[in-house]
């Protein structure tokens, strides 16, 4: 479901050189985004939550992007709001990657009944539209930051596990694995030291795509009113709040919209750069 980008089966016309360029652009976008959010409290010109009588003001030297319906500075809210949105995204995706790695590696490497059980269980989660499942879980558990992180980690784990499992199935038959086994290396060591490093490229690409998807899911949940609780700002919530008066102050909508698109674009560019550079799905 709310999977914004889906992996294209093959990617004709890709090249390592263009991959490097995309990767460079993506990294530059990521670093600038991280710098702004990490140093947000120092950079933001105003308080993100303080009201002022000057509501729905247009852009000025004082408020570069104007103010919202209760007079809060839009630029400051965007900068601070990015912290919440990106924090949830990064923590949730790290958890999903970790869980997906463990499940996918176990499933693919051990094989047999273990593989069947893990994969069928993940199929069940797979059957739900991601976004609907996320809504139901957050609605049931209550919209707090830890719950949002947990939910998003759960819904993206199956995809991650599948991406890890696929290549593991073939790599575990390679000669160097047999060689390691013949000199008495333990199974756990083989799985983590000799198989895992060989499947790292698709994992990197998928992680980047999942980050893009997660930006969508986090902001969309907040947009529906089941995001991080107020008064701390977040991009999805800002977009939703601004709709009421958007004809009077278009920047209150365009600001968060641009932030969401920029963040998503960053991870898509990174994913495409990684894919072309590492030549995944192009073999």
């Amino acid at each position, binding site marked *: 479901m709310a999977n914004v980008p889906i992996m294209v089966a093959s990617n*004709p016309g890709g090249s390592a050189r263009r991959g490097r360029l995309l990767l460079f652009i993506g990294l530059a976008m990521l670093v600038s985004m991280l710098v702004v959010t990490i140093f947000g409290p120092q950079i933001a010109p105003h308080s993100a939550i303080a009201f002022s009588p000057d509501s729905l003001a247009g852009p000025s030297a004082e408020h570069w992007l104007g103010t919202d319906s209760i007079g809060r500075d839009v630029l400051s809210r965007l900068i601070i709001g990015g912290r919440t949105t990106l924090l949830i995204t990064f923590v949730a995706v790290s958890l999903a990657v970790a869980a997906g790695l463990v499940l996918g590696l176990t499933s693919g490497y051990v094989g047999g009944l273990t593989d069947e059980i893990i994969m069928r269980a993940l199929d069940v989660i797979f059957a739900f539209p991601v976004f609907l499942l996320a809504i139901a879980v957050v609605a049931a558990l209550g919209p707090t930051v830890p719950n949002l992180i947990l939910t998003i980690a759960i819904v993206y784990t199956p995809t991650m596990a599948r991406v890890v499992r696929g290549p593991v199935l073939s790599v575990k038959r390679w000669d160097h694995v047999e060689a390691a086994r013949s000199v008495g290396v333990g199974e756990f060591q083989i799985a983590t030291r000799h198989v895992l490093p060989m499947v790292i490229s698709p994992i990197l690409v998928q992680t980047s795509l999942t980050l893009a998807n997660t930006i969508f899911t986090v902001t969309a949940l907040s947009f529906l009113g089941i995001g991080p609780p107020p008064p701390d700002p977040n991009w999805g919530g800002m977009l939703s709040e601004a709709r009421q008066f958007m*004809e009077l102050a278009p920047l209150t909508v365009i600001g968060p919209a641009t932030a969401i698109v920029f963040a998503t674009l960053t991870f898509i560019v990174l994913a495409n750069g990684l894919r072309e550079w590492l030549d995944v799905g192009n073999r």
Partner: protein
Amino acid sequence: MIRVVLVRLGWMLPILLGVSLVAFTLMRALPGDFAQAAAGTTDISPEALQTIRRELGLDLPIWAQYLHWLGQLAVGDLGTSFVTDKPVWGELLPRLAVTFELTFLAGLMAMVLGVGSGLASARLRGRTDWVVRGINGLWLAVPNFVVATLIVLLAGLYFPELGIFNYVPFFEDPIGNLGSMLLPALSLALAVSVTISENTRAAVLEVASQDFVMVARAKGLGAGAVLRDYLVRNALTPVITVTGLQLAQLLGGSILIETIFTIPGMGQYLFDSITSRDYPVIQAIVLVAAVIVLLVNVLVDVAYARADARVSYG
């Protein structure tokens, strides 16, 4: 062909059971008391709470509750709304129809836009390819609710007389209904059309590089015939799959779009139920959506088998 369908449907059963288990557990994992949620208030005497518990069968052991709930599902009983006290199924059905219409229109638009631009991109190459891919890359990063909000903003700023929030029921005025669905469907279709476009392009390019296409061209077939009989036909298979798989995205997206454009579909129903903490409705919608996605996946598999002679399910 019938066997293919039966085998696939048979596989669905265990997954459906798993899905129902997840939906059941979800609603039992609620913080606080389910009976209290059913009462809709915390200000309630312990005796009254006990009565509700008995009515809902909450005093039974958990596995008995699950089996009971499953039995009700099997006869088409999706439970009773906490808010209206009416069966969920009766309230869900008309809304489901609205969502289907929206999803269908969006899917159609996405197909036309996606296959069209993907074909153009792959066949014309050069600048067209460059433009299509550039636009695709950018659109991929614009979530559907952002598109919808921006459409509403633009309409409000420049065409205030348009009245895009006036949803018209289909049976009152079919033409007006289509008109009111156009912009919502478009905002839903754009992201999906990008995926279809990229996959069409990749599939056509892959087919075009194969020998039989060169042979067809060498024996003097016209460009139109090659495109129709060789390229499009063979490139269709991955496109069908991708389009089918995008349905889940369309269903999820419709929640957002319906909320923005105030269309009384399943998405808005879910949204309202979340606001009023009407858990049976949330549970029913999640379940119905999962079943729809599963069914579509089967359809995709069947369509795939029909379109590609190499695929066979023995």
